[in-house]
Protein backbone atom coordinates (compact mmCIF):
# COMPACT_ATOMS: atom_id res chain seq x y z
CA UNK A 1 0.00 0.00 0.00
CA UNK A 2 1.45 3.42 -0.92
CA UNK A 3 1.58 6.12 1.70
CA UNK A 4 -1.14 8.07 -0.15
CA UNK A 5 -3.36 4.99 0.06
CA UNK A 6 -2.63 4.60 3.80
CA UNK A 7 -3.64 8.23 4.36
CA UNK A 8 -6.89 7.74 2.44
CA UNK A 9 -7.63 4.49 4.27
CA UNK A 10 -7.30 6.37 7.56
CA UNK A 11 -9.97 8.81 6.36
CA UNK A 12 -7.54 11.74 6.47
CA UNK A 13 -7.19 14.65 4.07
CA UNK A 14 -3.64 15.97 3.91
CA UNK A 15 -2.36 18.90 1.86
CA UNK A 16 0.10 17.86 -0.85
CA UNK A 17 2.87 20.00 0.68
CA UNK A 18 2.35 18.32 4.08
CA UNK A 19 2.58 14.76 2.76
CA UNK A 20 6.40 14.42 2.90
CA UNK A 21 6.46 15.77 6.49
CA UNK A 22 3.74 13.38 7.61
CA UNK A 23 5.41 10.51 5.81
CA UNK A 24 8.70 11.26 7.60
CA UNK A 25 6.95 11.25 11.00
CA UNK A 26 5.21 7.96 10.18
CA UNK A 27 8.49 6.45 8.99
CA UNK A 28 10.01 7.23 12.40
CA UNK A 29 7.05 5.60 14.16
CA UNK A 30 7.24 2.56 11.86
CA UNK A 31 10.91 2.18 12.80
CA UNK A 32 10.00 2.45 16.49
CA UNK A 33 7.28 -0.16 16.02
CA UNK A 34 9.79 -2.53 14.43
CA UNK A 35 11.85 -2.28 17.64
CA UNK A 36 9.02 -3.39 19.92
CA UNK A 37 7.31 -5.89 17.61
CA UNK A 38 10.10 -8.41 18.05
CA UNK A 39 9.71 -11.86 19.64
CA UNK A 40 8.12 -11.74 23.08
CA UNK A 41 6.68 -14.26 25.49
CA UNK A 42 2.95 -14.62 24.94
CA UNK A 43 2.53 -14.12 28.69
CA UNK A 44 4.09 -10.63 28.75
CA UNK A 45 1.37 -8.22 29.91
CA UNK A 46 1.10 -4.62 28.70
CA UNK A 47 0.93 -1.73 31.17
CA UNK A 48 -2.84 -1.43 30.90
CA UNK A 49 -3.69 -4.75 32.59
CA UNK A 50 -6.94 -4.33 34.55
CA UNK A 51 -6.59 -3.79 38.29
CA UNK A 52 -9.85 -3.93 40.21
CA UNK A 53 -10.44 -3.11 43.87
CA UNK A 54 -12.98 -5.02 45.94
CA UNK A 55 -16.00 -2.98 47.00
CA UNK A 56 -15.46 -1.85 50.59
Amino acid sequence: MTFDERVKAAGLTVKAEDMPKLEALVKDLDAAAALVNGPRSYAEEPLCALKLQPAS
Partner: protein
Amino acid sequence: MTELHYLTIAEASAKIRAKSLSPVELTRAYLDRIATLDAQLNAYLLPLGEMALAQARQAEAEIAAGNWKGPLHGIPIGLKDIYNTAGIRTTGHSALFKDHVPTEDAVTVAKLKDAGAIILGKLSTWEFAIGGASFDLPWPPARNPWNTAHDPGGSSSGSGVAVAAGLAMAAMGTDTGGSIRGPASWCGIAGHKPTYGYLSRRGVLPLAFSLDHAGPMCWTSEDCALMMQVLAGHDPLDAGSAKVEIPDFAAALGGDLKGVRIGVPRNFVETDLVCDPEVLAAFNASMEVFTSLGATVTDITLPPLSLFTDVNSMITAAEAYAIHGQWLRKTPELYGERGRLRIMAGAFISAEAYVNAQRERTRLIGVVAEAMKSVDLLMMPTRHITAPVLGGYDSSVGPSLTRPFNMTGNPALSVCNGFSSAGMPISLQIGGRPFEDHLVLKAGDAFEKATSYRSARPRLTATALAAQ
Protein backbone atom coordinates in the same frame (compact mmCIF):
# COMPACT_ATOMS: atom_id res chain seq x y z
CA MET B 1 15.02 44.81 48.21
CA THR B 2 13.49 42.27 45.81
CA GLU B 3 10.89 43.76 43.50
CA LEU B 4 7.39 42.41 44.18
CA HIS B 5 7.21 40.51 40.89
CA TYR B 6 10.43 38.66 41.68
CA LEU B 7 9.49 37.48 45.16
CA THR B 8 9.23 33.72 45.60
CA ILE B 9 6.07 32.16 47.00
CA ALA B 10 7.93 31.45 50.26
CA GLU B 11 8.98 35.10 50.58
CA ALA B 12 5.68 36.65 49.52
CA SER B 13 3.64 34.27 51.62
CA ALA B 14 5.53 35.17 54.79
CA LYS B 15 4.91 38.86 54.10
CA ILE B 16 1.23 38.30 53.28
CA ARG B 17 0.74 36.28 56.44
CA ALA B 18 2.43 39.03 58.47
CA LYS B 19 0.13 41.55 56.70
CA SER B 20 3.14 43.52 55.47
CA LEU B 21 2.26 42.72 51.83
CA SER B 22 -1.18 43.23 50.37
CA PRO B 23 -2.41 40.57 47.90
CA VAL B 24 -4.11 43.41 46.00
CA GLU B 25 -0.86 45.37 45.73
CA LEU B 26 0.97 42.21 44.66
CA THR B 27 -1.65 41.29 42.05
CA ARG B 28 -1.63 44.86 40.66
CA ALA B 29 2.17 44.68 40.33
CA TYR B 30 1.83 41.55 38.18
CA LEU B 31 -1.04 42.93 36.09
CA ASP B 32 0.92 46.14 35.42
CA ARG B 33 3.96 44.11 34.42
CA ILE B 34 1.88 41.90 32.12
CA ALA B 35 0.44 45.05 30.49
CA THR B 36 3.94 46.50 30.01
CA LEU B 37 5.93 43.48 28.86
CA ASP B 38 3.74 40.70 27.58
CA ALA B 39 3.14 42.14 24.11
CA GLN B 40 6.71 41.07 23.38
CA LEU B 41 6.77 37.82 25.36
CA ASN B 42 3.33 36.39 24.47
CA ALA B 43 3.11 34.40 27.69
CA TYR B 44 -0.61 35.10 28.16
CA LEU B 45 -3.43 34.13 25.83
CA LEU B 46 -5.97 35.63 28.21
CA PRO B 47 -5.06 37.83 31.20
CA LEU B 48 -7.90 37.88 33.74
CA GLY B 49 -7.23 41.23 35.43
CA GLU B 50 -10.66 42.00 36.87
CA MET B 51 -11.19 38.50 38.19
CA ALA B 52 -7.70 38.43 39.66
CA LEU B 53 -8.22 41.72 41.48
CA ALA B 54 -11.57 40.52 42.85
CA GLN B 55 -9.89 37.34 44.14
CA ALA B 56 -7.04 39.43 45.61
CA ARG B 57 -9.50 41.70 47.43
CA GLN B 58 -11.26 38.64 48.82
CA ALA B 59 -7.93 37.13 49.95
CA GLU B 60 -6.97 40.40 51.60
CA ALA B 61 -10.27 40.56 53.48
CA GLU B 62 -9.96 36.94 54.62
CA ILE B 63 -6.41 37.43 55.88
CA ALA B 64 -7.35 40.71 57.59
CA ALA B 65 -10.12 38.79 59.38
CA GLY B 66 -7.58 36.26 60.65
CA ASN B 67 -8.43 33.52 58.14
CA TRP B 68 -5.05 32.87 56.49
CA LYS B 69 -5.47 29.65 54.51
CA GLY B 70 -1.83 28.73 53.92
CA PRO B 71 1.19 29.53 51.75
CA LEU B 72 -0.74 30.04 48.50
CA HIS B 73 -3.25 32.51 49.98
CA GLY B 74 -2.97 35.70 47.93
CA ILE B 75 -0.30 34.27 45.56
CA PRO B 76 -0.77 35.22 41.86
CA ILE B 77 -0.39 32.30 39.47
CA GLY B 78 -1.04 31.52 35.80
CA LEU B 79 -2.57 28.46 34.16
CA LYS B 80 -1.47 26.75 30.97
CA ASP B 81 -4.46 27.09 28.67
CA ILE B 82 -5.30 23.41 28.76
CA TYR B 83 -6.53 23.65 32.38
CA ASN B 84 -10.30 23.97 32.33
CA THR B 85 -11.64 27.11 33.96
CA ALA B 86 -15.38 27.40 34.65
CA GLY B 87 -16.97 30.09 32.48
CA ILE B 88 -13.60 31.10 31.00
CA ARG B 89 -12.43 29.91 27.60
CA THR B 90 -9.87 27.10 27.57
CA THR B 91 -8.46 26.91 24.07
CA GLY B 92 -5.48 24.58 24.03
CA HIS B 93 -3.97 27.46 21.97
CA SER B 94 -5.99 26.09 19.04
CA ALA B 95 -8.57 27.49 16.63
CA LEU B 96 -10.44 24.19 17.15
CA PHE B 97 -11.17 25.10 20.78
CA LYS B 98 -11.18 28.90 20.51
CA ASP B 99 -14.77 29.08 21.75
CA HIS B 100 -14.50 26.21 24.26
CA VAL B 101 -15.85 27.43 27.60
CA PRO B 102 -15.85 24.69 30.26
CA THR B 103 -18.50 24.62 32.94
CA GLU B 104 -16.17 23.33 35.66
CA ASP B 105 -12.69 24.10 36.88
CA ALA B 106 -10.04 21.40 36.60
CA VAL B 107 -9.62 19.68 39.98
CA THR B 108 -6.18 21.26 40.41
CA VAL B 109 -7.55 24.71 39.58
CA ALA B 110 -10.29 24.27 42.17
CA LYS B 111 -7.66 23.23 44.73
CA LEU B 112 -5.58 26.33 43.98
CA LYS B 113 -8.64 28.58 44.31
CA ASP B 114 -9.66 26.89 47.56
CA ALA B 115 -6.15 27.57 48.86
CA GLY B 116 -6.67 31.26 48.12
CA ALA B 117 -4.42 31.54 45.04
CA ILE B 118 -5.11 34.37 42.59
CA ILE B 119 -5.61 33.31 38.96
CA LEU B 120 -3.85 35.89 36.76
CA GLY B 121 -4.82 34.34 33.43
CA LYS B 122 -4.45 31.60 30.86
CA LEU B 123 -1.03 30.93 29.40
CA SER B 124 0.34 30.08 26.00
CA THR B 125 1.07 26.45 25.09
CA TRP B 126 2.06 24.43 22.07
CA GLU B 127 -1.22 23.51 20.37
CA PHE B 128 -2.92 20.89 22.56
CA ALA B 129 0.47 20.46 24.28
CA ILE B 130 2.24 18.95 21.25
CA GLY B 131 4.08 20.02 18.12
CA GLY B 132 6.23 23.05 18.79
CA ALA B 133 6.31 26.84 18.63
CA SER B 134 3.91 27.70 15.81
CA PHE B 135 3.15 30.86 13.86
CA ASP B 136 -0.03 29.59 12.18
CA LEU B 137 -2.27 29.51 15.29
CA PRO B 138 -4.75 32.19 16.43
CA TRP B 139 -2.16 33.46 18.96
CA PRO B 140 1.60 33.90 18.54
CA PRO B 141 4.08 31.60 20.31
CA ALA B 142 5.65 32.64 23.61
CA ARG B 143 9.21 33.99 23.50
CA ASN B 144 12.14 33.29 25.79
CA PRO B 145 12.62 36.17 28.26
CA TRP B 146 16.41 35.64 28.33
CA ASN B 147 16.48 36.42 24.60
CA THR B 148 13.21 36.90 22.76
CA ALA B 149 14.66 35.55 19.52
CA HIS B 150 14.91 32.17 21.24
CA ASP B 151 12.49 29.35 21.98
CA PRO B 152 11.23 29.13 25.57
CA GLY B 153 10.59 25.40 25.16
CA GLY B 154 7.28 23.68 25.45
CA SER B 155 4.71 22.66 25.57
CA SER B 156 4.11 24.68 28.77
CA SER B 157 5.83 27.62 27.09
CA GLY B 158 3.78 30.48 28.54
CA SER B 159 4.14 28.98 32.03
CA GLY B 160 7.94 28.94 31.76
CA VAL B 161 8.08 32.44 30.33
CA ALA B 162 5.65 33.94 32.85
CA VAL B 163 7.55 32.61 35.87
CA ALA B 164 11.02 33.54 34.54
CA ALA B 165 9.91 37.01 33.48
CA GLY B 166 8.06 37.83 36.68
CA LEU B 167 4.66 37.80 34.98
CA ALA B 168 3.38 35.19 37.46
CA MET B 169 4.79 33.99 40.77
CA ALA B 170 4.06 30.40 39.76
CA ALA B 171 2.25 28.56 37.00
CA MET B 172 0.68 25.23 36.21
CA GLY B 173 2.13 23.15 33.42
CA THR B 174 1.58 19.67 32.06
CA ASP B 175 4.12 17.08 31.00
CA THR B 176 3.64 14.14 28.60
CA GLY B 177 7.20 13.90 27.32
CA GLY B 178 8.93 16.82 29.05
CA SER B 179 6.50 19.71 28.70
CA ILE B 180 7.06 21.03 32.23
CA ARG B 181 10.78 20.30 32.47
CA GLY B 182 11.69 21.46 28.94
CA PRO B 183 10.44 25.03 29.30
CA ALA B 184 11.62 25.10 32.90
CA SER B 185 15.09 24.26 31.57
CA TRP B 186 15.22 26.80 28.77
CA CYS B 187 13.63 29.54 30.89
CA GLY B 188 15.85 28.81 33.91
CA ILE B 189 13.14 28.01 36.47
CA ALA B 190 12.17 25.02 38.60
CA GLY B 191 9.59 22.69 37.05
CA HIS B 192 8.33 19.55 38.73
CA LYS B 193 6.71 16.59 37.01
CA PRO B 194 5.21 14.74 39.98
CA THR B 195 4.86 10.99 40.28
CA TYR B 196 2.09 9.79 37.93
CA GLY B 197 -1.11 9.72 39.95
CA TYR B 198 -0.11 12.23 42.64
CA LEU B 199 -2.07 15.09 41.01
CA SER B 200 -5.48 14.80 39.43
CA ARG B 201 -5.56 15.27 35.65
CA ARG B 202 -9.35 15.66 35.62
CA GLY B 203 -10.34 18.82 33.78
CA VAL B 204 -7.02 19.14 31.97
CA LEU B 205 -7.28 18.69 28.18
CA PRO B 206 -5.63 15.29 27.62
CA LEU B 207 -2.85 14.56 25.16
CA ALA B 208 -1.94 10.95 26.09
CA PHE B 209 -3.84 9.55 29.05
CA SER B 210 -1.17 7.14 30.26
CA LEU B 211 1.66 9.69 30.05
CA ASP B 212 0.03 13.03 31.01
CA HIS B 213 1.08 14.68 34.28
CA ALA B 214 -0.03 17.99 35.81
CA GLY B 215 2.56 19.88 37.83
CA PRO B 216 3.90 23.16 39.19
CA MET B 217 6.41 25.55 37.62
CA CYS B 218 8.03 28.06 39.97
CA TRP B 219 11.23 30.02 40.48
CA THR B 220 12.49 27.60 43.15
CA SER B 221 12.14 23.98 44.21
CA GLU B 222 10.89 25.22 47.58
CA ASP B 223 8.00 26.95 45.81
CA CYS B 224 7.25 23.74 43.89
CA ALA B 225 7.04 21.96 47.26
CA LEU B 226 4.57 24.57 48.54
CA MET B 227 2.46 24.11 45.41
CA MET B 228 2.61 20.32 45.70
CA GLN B 229 1.17 20.50 49.20
CA VAL B 230 -2.01 22.01 47.81
CA LEU B 231 -2.15 20.11 44.52
CA ALA B 232 -1.41 16.49 45.49
CA GLY B 233 -4.25 14.23 46.53
CA HIS B 234 -6.41 11.33 45.47
CA ASP B 235 -9.17 11.97 42.94
CA PRO B 236 -11.56 9.01 42.72
CA LEU B 237 -12.79 10.25 39.33
CA ASP B 238 -9.32 10.27 37.74
CA ALA B 239 -8.58 6.70 36.60
CA GLY B 240 -4.84 7.22 37.09
CA SER B 241 -5.06 8.82 40.52
CA ALA B 242 -3.11 7.17 43.32
CA LYS B 243 -4.53 6.69 46.80
CA VAL B 244 -1.45 7.37 48.89
CA GLU B 245 -0.60 9.38 51.96
CA ILE B 246 0.55 12.91 51.15
CA PRO B 247 3.78 13.89 52.90
CA ASP B 248 4.67 17.36 54.14
CA PHE B 249 6.73 18.40 51.11
CA ALA B 250 8.02 21.67 52.60
CA ALA B 251 8.98 20.03 55.91
CA ALA B 252 11.17 17.57 53.98
CA LEU B 253 13.35 20.42 52.69
CA GLY B 254 16.52 21.62 54.38
CA GLY B 255 19.53 19.92 55.86
CA ASP B 256 22.31 18.21 53.97
CA LEU B 257 22.18 15.25 51.61
CA LYS B 258 24.36 12.89 53.64
CA GLY B 259 23.71 9.29 52.65
CA VAL B 260 21.79 10.17 49.49
CA ARG B 261 23.00 8.02 46.59
CA ILE B 262 22.91 9.66 43.17
CA GLY B 263 23.08 7.59 39.99
CA VAL B 264 24.13 9.18 36.69
CA PRO B 265 23.05 7.17 33.62
CA ARG B 266 26.28 8.04 31.87
CA ASN B 267 25.20 6.34 28.64
CA PHE B 268 22.28 8.81 28.35
CA VAL B 269 24.50 11.89 28.41
CA GLU B 270 27.73 10.78 26.77
CA THR B 271 26.94 8.11 24.17
CA ASP B 272 23.18 7.96 23.49
CA LEU B 273 22.96 11.73 23.07
CA VAL B 274 25.61 14.31 22.31
CA CYS B 275 25.25 17.05 24.91
CA ASP B 276 26.38 20.59 24.23
CA PRO B 277 29.81 20.93 25.94
CA GLU B 278 28.57 23.79 28.14
CA VAL B 279 25.59 21.68 29.25
CA LEU B 280 27.81 18.71 30.06
CA ALA B 281 30.33 20.88 31.91
CA ALA B 282 27.56 22.45 34.01
CA PHE B 283 26.18 18.99 34.76
CA ASN B 284 29.53 17.60 35.87
CA ALA B 285 30.15 20.69 38.03
CA SER B 286 26.71 20.16 39.63
CA MET B 287 27.67 16.62 40.61
CA GLU B 288 30.59 18.12 42.56
CA VAL B 289 28.13 20.40 44.36
CA PHE B 290 26.05 17.38 45.35
CA THR B 291 29.17 15.59 46.57
CA SER B 292 30.01 18.63 48.71
CA LEU B 293 26.49 18.42 50.16
CA GLY B 294 27.17 14.88 51.37
CA ALA B 295 25.69 12.79 48.55
CA THR B 296 27.58 10.07 46.70
CA VAL B 297 27.60 10.07 42.91
CA THR B 298 27.94 6.86 40.88
CA ASP B 299 27.72 6.21 37.15
CA ILE B 300 25.13 3.64 36.11
CA THR B 301 23.91 2.28 32.79
CA LEU B 302 20.27 2.20 31.69
CA PRO B 303 18.76 0.88 28.45
CA PRO B 304 19.37 3.13 25.42
CA LEU B 305 17.74 6.54 25.66
CA SER B 306 16.36 6.16 22.12
CA LEU B 307 14.33 3.15 23.28
CA PHE B 308 12.58 5.20 26.00
CA THR B 309 12.01 8.00 23.48
CA ASP B 310 10.67 5.76 20.73
CA VAL B 311 8.24 3.95 23.00
CA ASN B 312 7.06 7.26 24.46
CA SER B 313 6.55 8.65 20.94
CA MET B 314 4.43 5.68 19.87
CA ILE B 315 2.22 5.77 22.95
CA THR B 316 1.82 9.55 22.74
CA ALA B 317 0.91 9.51 19.05
CA ALA B 318 -1.54 6.60 19.40
CA GLU B 319 -3.32 7.98 22.47
CA ALA B 320 -3.40 11.54 21.08
CA TYR B 321 -4.89 10.31 17.81
CA ALA B 322 -7.54 8.38 19.71
CA ILE B 323 -8.61 11.75 21.15
CA HIS B 324 -8.14 13.98 18.09
CA GLY B 325 -8.92 11.59 15.20
CA GLN B 326 -12.57 12.63 15.18
CA TRP B 327 -11.60 16.27 14.54
CA LEU B 328 -8.57 15.62 12.34
CA ARG B 329 -10.72 13.67 9.89
CA LYS B 330 -13.39 16.39 9.82
CA THR B 331 -11.68 19.77 10.28
CA PRO B 332 -7.89 19.38 9.94
CA GLU B 333 -7.65 23.00 8.85
CA LEU B 334 -8.49 24.10 12.40
CA TYR B 335 -5.11 22.81 13.61
CA GLY B 336 -1.72 24.38 13.02
CA GLU B 337 0.65 22.41 10.84
CA ARG B 338 2.96 21.13 13.58
CA GLY B 339 0.24 19.90 15.95
CA ARG B 340 -1.85 18.50 13.09
CA LEU B 341 0.93 16.39 11.60
CA ARG B 342 2.33 15.16 14.93
CA ILE B 343 -1.07 13.89 16.03
CA MET B 344 -2.10 12.59 12.58
CA ALA B 345 0.94 10.32 12.59
CA GLY B 346 -0.77 8.37 15.36
CA ALA B 347 -3.34 7.13 12.83
CA PHE B 348 -0.69 4.81 11.43
CA ILE B 349 0.29 2.98 14.59
CA SER B 350 -1.00 -0.57 14.54
CA ALA B 351 -2.74 -2.20 17.49
CA GLU B 352 0.21 -4.62 17.64
CA ALA B 353 2.71 -1.77 17.94
CA TYR B 354 0.69 0.08 20.60
CA VAL B 355 0.22 -2.97 22.80
CA ASN B 356 3.84 -4.00 22.37
CA ALA B 357 4.92 -0.44 23.25
CA GLN B 358 2.98 -0.79 26.51
CA ARG B 359 4.60 -4.20 27.09
CA GLU B 360 8.04 -2.69 26.48
CA ARG B 361 7.14 0.15 28.81
CA THR B 362 6.38 -2.35 31.57
CA ARG B 363 9.80 -3.90 31.03
CA LEU B 364 11.53 -0.49 31.15
CA ILE B 365 9.69 0.44 34.37
CA GLY B 366 11.09 -2.75 35.89
CA VAL B 367 14.64 -2.00 34.72
CA VAL B 368 14.55 1.53 36.20
CA ALA B 369 13.01 0.26 39.46
CA GLU B 370 15.80 -2.31 39.73
CA ALA B 371 18.46 0.36 39.10
CA MET B 372 16.89 2.54 41.77
CA LYS B 373 17.40 -0.14 44.40
CA SER B 374 21.06 0.92 44.54
CA VAL B 375 20.59 4.68 44.04
CA ASP B 376 18.05 7.10 45.52
CA LEU B 377 18.09 9.70 42.74
CA LEU B 378 18.90 9.78 39.03
CA MET B 379 20.53 12.90 37.63
CA MET B 380 21.21 14.14 34.11
CA PRO B 381 20.81 17.38 32.18
CA THR B 382 17.19 18.29 31.45
CA ARG B 383 17.89 19.30 27.85
CA HIS B 384 21.09 18.48 25.97
CA ILE B 385 21.17 21.94 24.39
CA THR B 386 20.25 25.46 25.47
CA ALA B 387 17.27 27.26 23.93
CA PRO B 388 17.61 27.42 20.13
CA VAL B 389 16.21 30.18 17.91
CA LEU B 390 12.40 30.27 18.00
CA GLY B 391 10.75 28.17 15.31
CA GLY B 392 13.70 25.94 14.49
CA TYR B 393 13.33 23.35 17.23
CA ASP B 394 11.54 20.10 16.43
CA SER B 395 10.70 18.12 19.56
CA SER B 396 9.96 15.00 17.50
CA VAL B 397 13.57 14.58 16.39
CA GLY B 398 16.18 12.65 18.39
CA PRO B 399 16.34 11.16 21.87
CA SER B 400 14.99 13.13 24.82
CA LEU B 401 16.29 13.12 28.40
CA THR B 402 12.88 13.93 29.84
CA ARG B 403 10.77 11.17 28.30
CA PRO B 404 12.07 8.27 30.39
CA PHE B 405 10.30 9.71 33.44
CA ASN B 406 6.96 9.96 31.61
CA MET B 407 7.36 6.35 30.59
CA THR B 408 8.00 5.16 34.14
CA GLY B 409 5.88 7.74 35.96
CA ASN B 410 8.76 8.50 38.37
CA PRO B 411 8.96 12.09 39.67
CA ALA B 412 11.43 14.44 37.96
CA LEU B 413 12.41 18.02 38.66
CA SER B 414 14.30 20.50 36.49
CA VAL B 415 16.45 23.09 38.25
CA CYS B 416 18.71 25.77 36.78
CA ASN B 417 22.39 24.82 37.07
CA GLY B 418 24.12 27.51 35.09
CA PHE B 419 24.17 29.78 32.08
CA SER B 420 25.80 29.40 28.68
CA SER B 421 28.35 31.86 27.37
CA ALA B 422 25.44 33.39 25.43
CA GLY B 423 23.58 33.96 28.70
CA MET B 424 20.95 31.26 28.21
CA PRO B 425 19.91 29.01 31.14
CA ILE B 426 21.18 25.45 31.51
CA SER B 427 19.37 22.93 33.72
CA LEU B 428 19.77 19.75 35.66
CA GLN B 429 17.14 17.02 35.97
CA ILE B 430 16.61 15.11 39.23
CA GLY B 431 14.55 11.93 39.12
CA GLY B 432 13.35 9.91 42.08
CA ARG B 433 11.47 6.76 43.00
CA PRO B 434 7.65 6.79 42.72
CA PHE B 435 6.09 8.95 45.47
CA GLU B 436 9.50 10.16 46.66
CA ASP B 437 8.88 13.61 45.22
CA HIS B 438 9.82 15.04 48.62
CA LEU B 439 13.40 13.73 48.22
CA VAL B 440 13.62 15.05 44.66
CA LEU B 441 12.47 18.50 45.82
CA LYS B 442 14.81 18.38 48.83
CA ALA B 443 17.77 17.73 46.50
CA GLY B 444 16.70 20.55 44.16
CA ASP B 445 16.26 22.95 47.07
CA ALA B 446 19.65 22.03 48.55
CA PHE B 447 21.33 22.60 45.18
CA GLU B 448 19.63 25.96 44.65
CA LYS B 449 20.63 27.12 48.13
CA ALA B 450 24.24 25.97 47.67
CA THR B 451 24.62 27.83 44.37
CA SER B 452 23.89 31.37 43.17
CA TYR B 453 21.81 30.65 40.05
CA ARG B 454 18.55 31.79 41.70
CA SER B 455 19.85 35.35 41.98
CA ALA B 456 20.03 35.90 38.19
CA ARG B 457 16.92 37.14 36.39
CA PRO B 458 16.41 38.13 32.76
CA ARG B 459 16.88 41.87 32.19
CA LEU B 460 13.46 43.02 31.10
CA THR B 461 12.12 46.45 30.37
CA ALA B 462 9.83 47.36 27.52
CA THR B 463 12.73 49.25 25.92
CA ALA B 464 15.23 46.42 26.36
CA LEU B 465 12.78 43.94 24.89
CA ALA B 466 12.07 46.17 21.90
CA ALA B 467 15.81 46.34 21.23
CA GLN B 468 16.24 42.52 21.16
